[in-house]
């Protein structure tokens, strides 16, 4: 399937999707003809019925809303439409029935490093029954059973009951400053952390009395970590060494062996915001022409690939090929514009 497959599917879904259609038209003019390397039809067929992806994307009005789509990019539709706000950082609860996301005034620039400091909103995963909790819940992440959330406060990691916002316990954050993610088995956190090296790195913090440790290299910028469902691997954006050229790449750390592996890299895109499918077989990530922080002018799109096809290079860069001589050629699906995506196999997000 080519990168514009979601267009034809969206057209069949009626006038309610006019915003998504207008967005797709606008994006079709921007997208490079090199997107979605062939052959990807088999991959698209594998993915089509594997649940739903939520992500944030800019609308023709200029604000950022939440969109829902199938993992092959089809059936793209608006999930949360609020012209006066930007929405970002959506994550499904483990059972796929709930959604957390952040909301900010439209005038606030969307930024990789700050979106989690605005108003936390909890809703059903189909967008209904949204409740704005407000600004006191930075960088929220679902607990393993979805009955608790953890937030990153200056004084520590707060575990809360989202129903009554009661703080159940507080743990030292040990330098984690953003992008907090609770492990699927509940035993640890990962996040972007200070103090593990001269720059910000990916930290693994055991839940309890443990001490944080770096799982990324510590001589460069690293960010946007997420757990694989097995709780044994963390995917993250391996950034550049300061003041040196390069692009952020998608890497994976193995917790037990403390080893790291390149999964996907391109010579002309920065790779951020990775997450895995709920069974860990596929990886979802973003490709940005301009580096993040600020997302607005970065020309960020999303892509999905099979984990078994990694390591993979997205282009024919001789420099990357020298660095990763055994990497596979590109085989991924372009999912169009989007940022900070998340994935559930539940059908609840599309159920009225």
């Amino acid at each position, binding site marked *: 399937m080519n990168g514009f497959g979601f267009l034809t599917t969206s057209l069949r879904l009626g006038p309610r999707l006019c915003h998504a259609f207008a967005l797709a038209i606008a994006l079709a003019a921007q997208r490079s003809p090199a997107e979605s390397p062939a052959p990807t039809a088999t991959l698209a067929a594998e993915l089509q019925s594997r649940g739903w992806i939520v992500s944030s994307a800019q609308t023709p009005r200029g604000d950022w809303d939440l969109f829902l789509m199938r993992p092959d990019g089809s059936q793209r539709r608006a999930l949360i439409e609020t012209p006066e706000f930007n929405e970002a950082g959506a994550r499904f609860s483990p059972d796929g029935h709930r959604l957390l996301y952040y909301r900010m005034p439209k005038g606030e620039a969307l930024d990789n*490093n700050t979106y989690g400091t605005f108003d936390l909103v909890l809703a059903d995963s189909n967008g209904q029954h949204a409740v704005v909790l407000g600004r006191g819940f930075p960088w929220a992440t679902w607990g393993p059973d979805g009955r608790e959330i953890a937030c990153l406060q*200056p004084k520590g990691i707060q575990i809360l009951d989202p129903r009554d916002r009661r703080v159940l316990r507080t743990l030292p954050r040990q330098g984690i*400053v953003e992008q907090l993610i609770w492990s699927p088995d509940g035993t640890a956190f990962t996040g972007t952390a*200070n103090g593990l*090296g001269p720059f*910000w790195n990916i930290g693994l913090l055991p839940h309890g009395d443990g001490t944080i440790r770096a799982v990324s290299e510590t001589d460069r910028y690293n960010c946007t970590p997420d757990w694989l469902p097995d709780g044994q691997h963390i995917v993250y954006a391996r950034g550049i060494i300061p003041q040196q050229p390069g692009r952020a790449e998608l890497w994976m750390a193995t917790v037990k062996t403390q080893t790291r592996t390149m999964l996907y890299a391109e010579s002309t895109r920065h790779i951020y915001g990775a997450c895995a499918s709920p069974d860990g077989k596929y990886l979802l990530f973003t490709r940005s022409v301009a580096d993040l922080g600020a997302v607005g002018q970065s020309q960020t799109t999303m892509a999905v690939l099979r984990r078994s096809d990694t390591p993979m290079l997205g282009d024919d860069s001789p420099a990357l090929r020298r660095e990763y001589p055994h990497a596979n050629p590109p085989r991924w699906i372009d999912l169009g514009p989007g940022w900070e995506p998340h994935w559930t196999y539940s059908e609840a997000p599309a159920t009225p």
Partner: protein
Amino acid sequence: MLRPTILLLLASLVVSCGKAPDGTQDAGADPQVQSLGQVEVTARLVELPEGAIFQRELYDYATILKYEVVTSHRGALPKGTILYVGHYNPWKPRPEAADARVKEIGGTLRRFRAGDLHRMALESPMDDHFMGGIVNKYFDQHTGPTYWARWTNPAH
């Protein structure tokens, strides 16, 4: 009648009245530096590590700089204490450093230079006041508190 050189000497004594022997008691003083934070010191910037300060519009960050206390104005940091101080977006002049994310910082210092004296109002620990990326070239060299610069003035 007093000779002019003696008059000049007397005048300089009058002007320096109230200063510490090292001349730092009043330098850099203003209402903000004298009231903000828990600690107020005049300290010498020991060095500027390579790569500690860079202009990168993509990130708002803080950098950790190493100081030696010359004069303690408030708080209990005796002369000679080595301090590690976090400055927000250090490539910006202090009057322009505050933004929507970090509102309560400032000062009159325009540029960080190794060896300069700074009069600073400080908070501690830094983690209570700033949650964001930190460039810390000393991350493996100290385990004590890291201070957060609320107000930074030149003191020379």
